[in-house]
């Protein structure tokens, strides 16, 4: 057990827990509004554990859409996680199979982003750090969903305290942190255009998959940079 790793995990995850708490409360409140009760809200936050798709699912619950369509929509919204687990596999090779299966269950957007950032800064991803980071997000996510379900009508407009800007800002900061990676600017430009077009013409949440596809495709088509590990590739990293 490495205490330092656990402390670092807790610290990193605490920021995420704080900025996602309002969304957990919002989810709980909206879920109750759409006919779920408190244990069902808890079950969903505990097992699905994916903010955006939980809200999409809840929207559809309220409209009496066929069950398979609800599940398919949630699958589509979460499709980006396929890319996450594929990209993360190389950093988790020292985990046992059971540890990997647990790690992938907890693989939400910030967990993926921070794990990549940590691994690229040269640190080994330890199970202690990964689970500490996850736990300090998972437990509040579940707790605040239940609080939202219980006291949903009491929360006011998140705009008053500018809570709605926190998550976009958080993700923006992480994107900026990747700016020295090869192909960063064309990839980000393609994702930006793809997601904005997707948002306008197809609608949320499909813009995430569309934008990601644009960016990843551009990265695959760009001239290949020297393989990582060679001196020239490392020189650009901070």
């Amino acid at each position, binding site marked *: 057990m490495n205490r330092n790793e656990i402390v670092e995990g807790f610290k990193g995850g605490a920021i995420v827990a704080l900025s996602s708490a309002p969304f957990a409360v919002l989810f709980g409140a909206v879920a109750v509004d759409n006919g779920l009760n408190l244990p069902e809200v808890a079950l969903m936050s505990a097992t699905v554990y994916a903010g955006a798709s939980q809200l999409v*699912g809840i929207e559809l619950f309220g409209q009496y859409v066929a069950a398979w369509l609800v599940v398919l929509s949630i699958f589509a919204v979460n499709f980006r996680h*396929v*890319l996450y687990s594929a990209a993360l596999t190389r950093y988790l090779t020292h985990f046992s199979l059971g540890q990997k299966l647990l790690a992938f269950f907890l693989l939400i957007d910030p967990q993926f982003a921070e794990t990549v950032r940590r691994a690229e800064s040269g640190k080994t991803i330890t199970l202690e750090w990964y689970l500490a980071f996850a736990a300090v997000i998972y437990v509040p996510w579940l707790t605040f969903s239940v609080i939202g379900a219980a006291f949903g009508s009491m929360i006011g407009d998140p705009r008053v305290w*500018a809570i709605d800007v926190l998550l976009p800002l958080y993700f923006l900061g992480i994107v900026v942190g990747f700016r020295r990676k090869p192909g960063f600017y064309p990839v980000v430009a393609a994702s930006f255009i793809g997601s*904005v077009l997707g948002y306008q013409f197809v609608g949320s949440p499909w813009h995430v998959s569309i934008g990601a596809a644009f960016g990843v495709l551009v990265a695959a088509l760009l001239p290949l940079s020297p393989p990582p590990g060679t001196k020239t590739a490392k020189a650009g990293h901070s």
Partner: protein
Amino acid sequence: MNFALDPATAWLIIAAAVATYLTRVGGYVLITRMSTIPPRLEAALNAVPAAVLTTLCAPAFFNGGLDIKLAMLVALVVSLKYPGLIMLAAGWATAMLCRHAFGL
């Protein structure tokens, strides 16, 4: 409030959880089935963080009001020099100022 799980709803939630988990292990299953990873696939995987996270903030910027646009621009400039928490605070303060002092 009713505190009993409705079986149909519970099963639907479990199915949604399974679908979500499949996406979270799917990439792992696919990538470990390949003996070697082609360089272009590797380049694509390297781009996943920047590509996906951009889509999570681009529409907020593009469709948001002047308050959100200014907050994100300030945060962008601050993030070039300062760590995440300061960037978050600067963007948040900008949004608060825009909304409460300038009525944007």
